[in-house]
């Protein structure tokens, strides 16, 4: 018994850590692999250890509202503006953008490769009743998809069994789409980094409607006094710096650049 306790004590010893900041980010940002590049650089440049909570945009905003994180990095403009207007965040700072793409069976049965716009492409999928996987988790990607259906004057509530709302993160949803050989809206980075593409291919991209802007919002320290606001300022400064610009613009998967840095030097 004493031996068991001794082993237990050894396991329980913990080490000291650098200053930490909790940042809620979207699954699409993390699945793209960019965070693996940025975090070690942030630690080296500022001594700040960024702890990522990888969740959907909806949950990230909730974490910020409750004060469980110090800052959020998300991509759903209207929800972000509301978040700041309601006093949960101090301000919204745009950092970078990438774009959404429509993924589907590489044989393209609904012929959306030649669609005029993103909403036209979705209309074609709907008219063919071709299988479509929706994130269904109130994430930024999900909200974008709902916006596109609205533009196309279609109501997902009224769709039949071909429309599957799976309520999962980007990667899990892509896995489901891959096994069902279904269409799905994904951000380009997650798609390129995804390891289980199966028979799926990139069918449609390039419509300005599909731009995907990421913004950084520090949680309001007036509302939550425990928020590490000095760290959120250091992190914001780094994310909008020249070093960040070079790393973000230089990040490529398979020779394709993914993100475009567009933070203005001053707020």
């Amino acid at each position: 018994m004493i031996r068991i306790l001794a082993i237990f004590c050894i396991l329980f010893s913990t080490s000291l850590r650098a200053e930490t900041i909790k940042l809620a980010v979207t699954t699409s940002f993390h699945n793209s692999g960019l965070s693996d590049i940025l975090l070690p650089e942030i630690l080296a440049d500022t001594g700040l250890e960024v702890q990522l909570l990888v969740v959907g945009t909806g949950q990230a905003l909730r974490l910020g509202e409750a004060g469980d994180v110090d800052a959020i990095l998300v991509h759903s403009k209207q929800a972000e503006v509301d978040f700041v207007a309601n006093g949960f965040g101090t301000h919204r700072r745009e950092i970078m953008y990438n774009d959404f793409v429509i993924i589907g069976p590489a044989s393209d049965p609904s012929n959306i490769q030649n669609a005029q716009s993103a909403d036209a492409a979705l209309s074609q999928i709907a008219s063919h009743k071709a299988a479509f996987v929706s994130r269904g988790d109130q994430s930024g990607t999900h909200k974008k998809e709902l916006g596109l259906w609205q533009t196309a004057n279609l109501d997902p509530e009224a769709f039949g069994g071909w429309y599957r709302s799976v309520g999962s993160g980007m990667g899990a949803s892509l896995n489901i789409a891959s096994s069902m050989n279904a269409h799905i809206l994904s951000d380009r980075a997650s798609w390129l980094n995804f390891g289980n593409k199966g028979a799926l291919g990139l069918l449609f991209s390039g419509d300005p409607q599909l731009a995907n802007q990421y913004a950084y919002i520090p949680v309001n320290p007036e509302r939550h006094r425990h928020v590490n606001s000095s760290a959120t300022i250091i992190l914001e400064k780094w994310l909008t710096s020249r070093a960040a610009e070079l790393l973000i613009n230089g990040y490529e998967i398979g020779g394709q650049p993914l993100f475009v840095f567009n933070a203005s030097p001053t707020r």
Partner: protein
Amino acid sequence: MNEIWAGLQAALFLVFTLDKDLVEITLRSLQVSLSALVIASAIALPFGTWLAIRRFRYRRATIAALNALMGLPPVVVGLIVYLLLSRSGPFGVLGLLFSPTAMIIAQVIIIAPLIASITHQAMRELWAEYHDLLISLNTTKRQRIFTLIRDGKRALLTAALAGFGRAIGEVGAIMIVGGNIDHATRVLTTAIALETGKGDFALALGLGFVLIALAMLVNFAIHALSRTEREGTW
């Protein structure tokens, strides 16, 4: 089938190169689940034994409730612990959310009823055997509980190992209260969920094999250390 092979290869590769991240999350898995096991055992073993020897009015109801709690859904436990520890919840000032401590709390709640229930079942039979002897020796309640725990340690070991098994393989609750933060709260099960999400089935499966091996290793280690199945110490 190819993916299972690739998973086995990934597991062997990770183990033999002693991958730094793998060692870290494996140790954290052990730390969280063993802490939860020790705390839950400290509560549940005496409680289960006490329940076996003590007769009181709501005993039946308590036992029925305990048995029902064995099936407590981890996801719901996680959600409740999350809401309690959240900064806007009642225990928010402690700042425990998204820390290994929060994961330990959730796991204690999940496994304590299981351990207490198995303990109670085993102790009830032992008590039937010891009842007359311990009463005639005029022992106190406390002495009776400790005698039963000492003589029934093999059954208690089984109870504890069942609890450990449930804790080490659990993902729903610790994902919610821990947040799967790299280098802070990532453990084997949440890492498996993450890699599956990335579509990297080989690595996910590799981690899965490591998890299975770890669970077996802990079981063997505890058996060896407590010297069961040996002559003279039944």
